[in-house]
């Protein structure tokens, strides 16, 4: 990476094209008196799209966000957002970035409309544009008549939406969402995740979602950045982290033992796994053999799928963990910088 990280001072930077990373850091380090090292030579690229940021403990995550927004000086290394240097172009970066904090940050005695409009002005929008974009943002996040009521009367789900609306009002190129589903019940989480996925897919805005919930990251993100102890643990696409393996899982509602015996008879070397059966996938014939075995025995087939790796495996202490007994050995994947 010998190319400069950012545009030169004074040069305009804005729309990231397909090639430019939305966030890029090189050996980014931040030490506090303590001695506490929040970030330790972090080098990572975040591509356009929806990226999950996972694993960072409190200090690392908030330090990273502050540095990216140009609010904190790193002890060492460099950071760039949307092609601009975080130290030098902080204001411009903050104009183009929307931030949704994790904690409560809404005043109770103001309506959502007033609040988002005011923050639109604070983002640099002229008065009329602020009003219009506030109305639009509230509509996009799904707040309709409620927006004329005071925020103190809102449910948690609605408050999260207001936080998201204020992040959108300035038309950001990048959204930083910090634990957007915290405190929401399952229905609320589902709609928030859907909303975020829609924003990422349809609005043309890159999103970084900081979350501890690997399930939701697998669900809506294209990429993953995992940070541990201030260093990069892994940066990769979700697709490659959830790659299909050469193992087929078969689940029948009853008669699992008979299935095991029949598959063994057909030479497939089956293994029991929780309520299901695993066989090695040796080409298409395996599918047919399984189908025929199930049909012969007249067993109720509930599930048939190729096992996939899961993001969670990254955090298991042991490689080839008890979670995933695969026939045949599995070499640990080396951590690499994506």
């Amino acid at each position, binding site marked *: 990476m010998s190319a400069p990280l950012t545009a030169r001072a004074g040069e305009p930077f804005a729309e990231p094209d397909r090639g430019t990373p939305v966030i890029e850091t090189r050996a980014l380090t931040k030490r506090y008196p303590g001695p506490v090292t929040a970030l330790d030579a972090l080098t990572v690229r975040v591509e356009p799209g929806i990226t999950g940021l996972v694993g960072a403990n409190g200090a690392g995550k*908030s330090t990273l*966000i*502050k540095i990216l*927004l140009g*609010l904190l000086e790193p002890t060492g290394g460099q950071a760039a957002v949307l092609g601009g240097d975080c130290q030098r172009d902080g*204001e*411009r970066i*903050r*104009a183009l*970035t929307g*931030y949704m*904090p994790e*904690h*409560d*940050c*809404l*005043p*109770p*005695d103001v309506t959502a409309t*007033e609040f988002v409009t*005011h*923050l639109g*002005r*604070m*983002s*640099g*929008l*002229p*008065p009329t*544009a602020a009003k219009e*974009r506030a109305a*639009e943002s509230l509509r*996009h996040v799904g707040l309709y008549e409620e927006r004329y009521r005071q925020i103190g009367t809102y449910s948690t789900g609605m408050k999260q939406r207001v936080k998201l609306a*204020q992040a959108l009002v*300035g*038309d950001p190129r990048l959204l930083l969402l910090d634990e957007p589903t915290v405190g929401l019940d399952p229905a609320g989480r589902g709609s928030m995740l859907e909303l975020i996925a829609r*924003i990422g897919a*349809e*609005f*043309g805005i890159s999103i970084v979602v900081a979350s501890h919930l690997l399930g939701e990251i697998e669900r809506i993100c294209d990429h993953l950045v995992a940070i541990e102890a201030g260093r990069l643990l892994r940066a990769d696409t979700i697709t490659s982290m959830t790659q299909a393996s050469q193992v087929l899982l078969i689940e029948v509602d009853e008669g699992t033992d008979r299935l095991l015996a029949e598959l063994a008879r057909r030479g497939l070397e089956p293994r029991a796994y929780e309520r299901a059966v695993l066989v090695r996938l040796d080409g298409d014939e395996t599918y047919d053999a399984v189908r025929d075995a199930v049909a012969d025995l007249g067993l109720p087939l509930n599930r048939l799928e190729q096992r996939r790796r899961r993001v969670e495996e990254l955090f298991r202490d042991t490689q080839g963990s008890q979670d995933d007994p695969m026939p045949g050995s599995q070499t640990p994947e080396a951590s690499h910088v994506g």
Partner: protein
Amino acid sequence: MSVDQGSRGGSSGLASTEAGVIHDIGYRRYTGRRLGRAQIIRALFWHSLRSAYGLGRGAKAKIVPVFTFVIMCLPAIVNAVVIARGQPRLVPYDTYANQLRVVVMIIFIAAQAPELVSRDLRSHVLPLYFCRPLRRMDYPVAKLAAFITACLALIEIPLLLLYVGTVAQVHSGSAVWAQTRALIPGLLVGLMWAVLLAAIGLALASMSGRRAYATGSIAIYFFLTWILSGILIAVTQRNVMRTVLIKPPPGAPAPPGAPAGPGGTFQAHVITQVPTTATHLVGLVSPFTTLDGVRQWLGGTSTGPVPGVGSYGALYGAMLLVLIAASLGGLASRYRKASTL
């Protein structure tokens, strides 16, 4: 027929036939003007100024601002009536109705400074400001400018009313000019008042997110120091007995027991209060008496709460600057520490 909306990132995918139209109401990019930092600060300034007067916040929020404003204007109105009756101007420009002004300002600042800063602290909204194209110190600067302006309006508008009420009754150009010359120092004193009191009030309010504590600490600080300065001024004065000559009006009897003096006068002893060095200095205790001391140092002649500054006028000036600097420093450090994103 198939209708394809195809709105990706806000492209104009409008679909229509003669019979019907589907409009694209997907997300739109913003391609208009983006204002710079200066204008954002200005927007925050106006927003805060409006909060100081309770505008845009419902009826209850306007009670204190309106009430204090009306009370503050009363002396000007009374004065206009007095002048209309042909009597000399009652209310001076530089001290106005000092006691009243003190009380009104304490009420206004204690009630409204928390509106500007404590609310934001309580709701933890500051990160949403700092993640925008604003610098950390722009926030307190805008808030302070707004609050100074709010206090300035409360002080100067009644002075202007006083001026207008007086000038309306006056008929000669030179008299108008005399009034104007008296008004200007009054406005300057008002400016000092606004700057100092707003800075102290805002600095104290920024120490707490809880309105009750903020209001309480402001009120207590101002009232206590005000009362204390009054007490100290009274107790530090010396009683001095002087002999004076009095001449009773013709036909009145002589005062009993009074020794006679030359030319039909009689001697009498009078006890007066005379300021001591301490008296000259205790005014530094309260912001209000400090302001009065500076006024006198700069040549103000109306009587005020401070009975003369002696040779210590410069100290009052220094105290004024110290108080302002301390308040600014307090505000700056508060907002440097505040906001953990």
